């Protein structure tokens, strides 16, 4: 396989966007093309989860490629639940690595706030098992709540640990101009004050309001190119060194131990193995914290910390911006937002931003190796990417 580089990046604010879905996908794509200085796009992949259901639009890639005046480039939509973004990057990676294409655009977009929160929650819940879970009213918050309860009982995670993740990531988001939530929060305000239960009520006990990510619109894009193209343009060389994808049972209750996220573990192993690196080599990571517990659990499963010790590392500040291994400097899904189809591309955007040294106030010093974990379903389809800054 050929080496694959990220030559350009672009992103919209993750927030409520008041323009059509195709443009939410096209706008960051245009920014990414401009960032790379490349116009000869040969293939476009558009990551999205809900266009058909939420926005009443199918064949999104055809709309986007036309919107960008990129016809007759090839174009395909990629739907892989909340892991759609990284799945599209994987497809783009394969297209370049195989030698089929030299310049590929991957853009992810979602417009979820076109519907209300109840409909958005129901839309996301359609990724659960239709007969074993969905028909019984299972939603992602309820899944995460049951997972959290088990995690608490087994490993000693408390609501305070969850609140610490929320505070860390939401405060990181304050430094990210593209983040959805620009509201600093404190442990006192969401956990300790007499008003905390109203400020931060239970959504699905033990998860509270500030343990869940917001419902966001947004888009993000990357331009993937061959080594030859990457070295012909004047941009920092950031290589996708590792790609790992793994799956797990669709229904969570069929897992031998529901607190083990085996797909995360396997995807990370594959990604690190391909890159020839280990978790201890990573300088900065973006993990899929759709719920605060997931940052803790994923930080263990990908190998950053021993199983059951993610919350201890959190307590020690190891995952803070100035910690040993900063996690979610962008604010993560919790603070930056979670436009599901765009999320994986947004994670890649942040890591490339960091590895280029362009992340401003949230820049991790001397970051050279970055990692993303894009968690689809409730851990049943996971993609991990490893990025290396070369020059």
């Amino acid at each position: 396989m050929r080496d694959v580089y990220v030559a350009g990046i672009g992103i919209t604010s993750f927030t409520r966007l008041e323009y059509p879905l195709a443009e939410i996908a096209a706008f960051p794509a245009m920014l990414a093309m401009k960032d790379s200085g490349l116009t000869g796009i040969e293939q476009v992949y558009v990551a999205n989860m809900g266009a058909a259901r939420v926005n009443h639009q199918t064949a999104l890639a055809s709309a986007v490629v036309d919107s960008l005046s990129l016809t007759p480039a090839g174009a395909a939509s990629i739907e892989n639940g909340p892991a759609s973004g990284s799945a599209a990057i994987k497809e783009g990676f394969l297209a370049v690595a195989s030698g089929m294409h030299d310049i590929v655009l991957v853009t992810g977009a979602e417009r979820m706030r076109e519907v209300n929160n109840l409909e958005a929650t129901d839309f996301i819940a359609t990724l659960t098992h239709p007969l074993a879970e969905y028909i019984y009213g299972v939603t992602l918050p309820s899944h995460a709540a049951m997972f959290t309860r088990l995690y608490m009982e087994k490993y000693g995670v408390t609501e305070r640990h969850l609140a610490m993740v929320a505070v860390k990531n939401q405060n990181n988001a304050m430094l990210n101009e593209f983040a959805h939530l620009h509201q600093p929060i404190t442990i006192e305000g969401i956990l300790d004050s007499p008003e905390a239960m109203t400020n931060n009520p239970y959504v699905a006990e033990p998860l509270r309001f500030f343990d869940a990510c917001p419902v966001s619109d947004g888009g993000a894009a990357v331009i993937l190119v061959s080594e030859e193209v990457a070295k012909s343009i004047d941009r920092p060389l950031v290589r996708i060194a590792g790609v790992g994808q793994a799956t797990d049972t669709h229904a969570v209750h069929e897992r031998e131990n529901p607190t083990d996220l085996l797909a995360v573990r396997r995807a990370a192993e594959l990604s690190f193995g391909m890159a020839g690196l280990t978790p201890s080599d990573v300088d900065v990571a973006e993990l899929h914290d759709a719920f605060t517990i997931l940052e803790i659990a994923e930080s263990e499963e990908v190998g950053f910390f021993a199983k059951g010790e993610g919350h201890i590392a959190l307590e020690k500040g190891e995952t803070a911006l100035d910690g040993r291994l900063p996690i979610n400097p962008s604010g993560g899904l919790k603070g930056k937002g979670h436009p599901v189809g765009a999320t994986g591309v947004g994670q890649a955007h942040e890591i490339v931003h960091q590895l280029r040294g362009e992340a401003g106030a949230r820049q991790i010093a001397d970051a050279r190796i970055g990692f993303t974990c894009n968690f689809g379903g409730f851990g049943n389809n996971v993609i991990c990417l490893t990025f290396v800054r070369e020059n």
Partner: protein
Amino acid sequence: MAVDLEKILRPEDHPMPPFPAKYMTLASGEQMVIRQVDRDEIPDILQYVAPLVNVERDFYDVVAARLYSEILAYSRHRYQDQYVLVAQVDGEIAAVVNGRQVTPNLGMSLHTVALRRGLRIGAHAFATKMEYHMDVLGHDEVLIVAESPIGFRRWMIEYQLEKRFGTPHELGGVPSWSLTRELFDRARDTLVVGRRPVPDELLAKAKAGILPPSDPPTPPADLLAATRSMYDSTGTALMAQRWRQEVEHA
């Protein structure tokens, strides 16, 4: 002659017990004071509400325009039995709520405007308004409407308000919803927060002056308005085409 006419034009307010100020901790950890303001502080509030009339987002424009006229009329003695509460964080205005007493048993909720978004600031201010109606004014019922979907979620859904669709609300004559004492008592433990008395220093800072909001709601970004078209509302396609031309002809 002029004085006599003013007597006719000016409604006579019925005595209403004052709202005792309270404070609460927001999710941000900041302390928010909610207190009643008199007519002399209305001009300060008006200048902060006025810009929101141009914020065409979440019905800020409609709500701000109506609130502006209501509290202006209150300050100029052209609105009967109205009260105004203001929420402040470090002296900065965070929210304004108002309402009025229709009869000794019936309250009319008018408006709730958050001048700082998020952190349940608007929801806290609304809950405080309901507390004033129920616990201080002794109303049995408050008639409520929502002009925005956010308001509908915060009032009708969170408080599970009852329909009073046969009773037109003073705001636009639209069907009313009702907060009864039973509903309020049910919501009291979860939605109505705050502590009294307000520490002297905190209250003094609030009363020292109503400062402008540092992060007020703003109109939606109108990206590249000049290039807008029916199918390209951000101008993305035009920008892309122009940029491609620049690159290809460079």
